[in-house]
């Protein structure tokens, strides 16, 4: 029973992480049809910022990490994706692939390809002991931060002027522009928010692994893809739901697969992606923007 509880806690923690990464991707996809493969590199540059900063107070670290990730997000929007606006989704995906590849190698160029160790916080590495179940403080913080960010993003999209414009743009970009929504501002804001999410994700990830490498962002972004496909491309609620569903699948595969099959975990997870694309390509929650109009 204790073991099962531990698995549930793991599933929720992983789910929160996947949801956090997935949100950043779903937000951009909803508005401009871009699957931002380079989202992982936003997490990576944030992580390098943490290493390079040394050890100021945690608030400074968090703020600077977010600032760096947001700056890179805005930079890639301005330099690459704005000139490509209106290109087909596969073209945009290839462009984001190129950015991802370029940024990873920029990290290699500047910092070398060897992983760098760091220690973020003593407090976060401690655990609460509840009976025989140990709950790392980091897990609680991860879940709480994800839920808080979700709530904040929801409020922003529902209650603020920019949020409403963003939802309008996600639903019908052309119509929104005709009605006076400024495309550049809306898209830049969306990238800014995805940078913010990536920065926070970077802090939580580095606090967990204590290690930074140029390809740090690859796995998070792969898992985020799975989460967003499962949940429904372009739907924010779908990305979050998909994140938690995938968290459960992930921990389930890891804990209950026969031992000799366990190393095939990712193969099963991605086979599930293909199955989902075939059976229910719109995902668990259908975003209104992806319904095809002929």
């Amino acid at each position, binding site marked *: 029973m204790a073991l099962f509880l531990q698995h549930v806690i793991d599933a929720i923690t992983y789910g929160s992480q996947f949801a956090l990464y997935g949100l950043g991707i779903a937000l951009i996809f909803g508005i401009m049809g871009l699957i931002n493969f380079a989202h992982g590199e936003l997490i990576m540059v944030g992580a390098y910022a943490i290493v390079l900063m040394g050890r100021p107070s945690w608030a400074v670290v968090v703020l600077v990490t977010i600032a760096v990730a947001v700056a890179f997000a805005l930079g890639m929007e301005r330099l690459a994706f704005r000139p490509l606006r209106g290109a087909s989704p596969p073209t945009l995906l290839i462009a984001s692939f190129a950015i991802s590849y370029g940024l990873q*190698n920029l990290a290699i160029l500047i910092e070398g*390809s060897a992983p760098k160790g760091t220690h973020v916080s003593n407090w976060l590495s401690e655990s609460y002991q509840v009976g025989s179940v140990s709950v790392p403080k980091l897990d609680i913080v991860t879940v709480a931060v994800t839920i808080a960010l979700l709530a904040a993003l929801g409020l922003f999209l529902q209650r603020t002027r920019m949020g409403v414009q963003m939802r309008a743009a996600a639903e019908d970009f052309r119509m929104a522009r005709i009605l006076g929504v400024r495309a550049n501002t809306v898209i830049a804001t969306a990238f800014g928010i995805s940078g913010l999410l990536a920065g926070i994700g970077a802090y939580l990830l580095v606090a967990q692994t204590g290690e930074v490498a140029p390809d740090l962002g690859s796995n998070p972004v792969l898992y985020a893809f799975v989460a967003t496909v499962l949940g429904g491309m372009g739907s924010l609620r779908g990305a979050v739901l998909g994140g938690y569903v995938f968290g459960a699948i992930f921990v389930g595969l890891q804990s209950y697969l026969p031992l000799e099959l366990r190393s095939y975990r990712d193969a099963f997870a991605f086979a599930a992606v293909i199955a989902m694309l075939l059976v229910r390509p719109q995902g668990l929650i259908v975003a209104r923007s992806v319904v095809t109009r002929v």
Partner: protein
Amino acid sequence: MALARTALRATWPLPALLLFVFAVAEIAYAAGDDVTRGVVVVALINLTLVIGLYVFVGNSGVFSFGSVSFASIGAYTAGLLVIPVDQKAILQPDLPGFIAHTHFGSVGATLMGGVVAAAVAVVFAVPLMQLTGIAAGLATFSLLVIVRTVANSWTEVTNGAAGLSGLPVTTGKNDALVWALLAIVAGFLFQSSALGLRLRASREDDVAARSLGVSVRMERRVAWVVHAFVMGIGGGLYGQYLGSFNASFFYLALTFTTLAMLVVGGIKSLTGAVVGSVTISFVAEVLHRIEEGVDVGPLHVPARPGLREIGLAIIMLAILILRPRGITNGRELPWPRLPGRSGDRMRRSTAEQGGDAAETYADVPVKDPS
């Protein structure tokens, strides 16, 4: 006479491309040092892979991010067949018997790499080819992750993350060149075939092609299997060039390189695939020399690992932004024009007005107006 000229115009890109690749490879190989020679071989293997990628992506217009997994399958298959039997017994004692005791020559093993890759592609063709656009992109990407995970985990056969080693290094310039030229011929025959033309029609206008009785799915499946065969051959060649490799070699970086070559040249034409490969191979080599450190007079530029990749990424982005349809603009090599011929002027003016439609004149034999 007119018929002969039409036929010549329709097929002339093939001999021109073959000659171009042959000449560039031979000149670079003859003029270069040992490093350049290695680069020529790698460039020719990459060219084979890019032609394979083109057969599917270029003709169908559906992007595949998983094609390199077929190169991986080809490399493992060919590798397991060429490693000498007694060596296999030491290095991989857990190999299933029929693999452990089978041995193929270099050419046979490379062909088997293509066959096994094509066989795996047949299995995936049924589900994957129903998808289009971004869903196809994600599904093929998933295929890449699946194949890599299996190659890393199926320790008895693939030797796990350590990968295969002890392959006789047999892929030289001549082998790589012959296979690359054969791939170009295959790519040209495929795109000129009735099935290839139907597939290209569906790429330009899916709905219109269907209304004319093109099944689309069927054409895509055939193209998918053919492309996997060519990718498998390329992978087999790579394995026998490297001597040892693991699954990570056939993953994101190679996917990016081959896609970059195709996109830079122009995905819609065979000429684009060739021109893109040659251009990127050349640029990558120049950047690589800078990356390793060069002496400019008394100044020493220190080694900078990563520079080549950054350069490639920037070039690819620039092409996507400035010339989205690639260097060739998606056309085949144009028929050399003699000045002052009325027929050619007419073609030129329709080409200028036509935009997209202009591409078809190189692909489909059009009756000569003169």
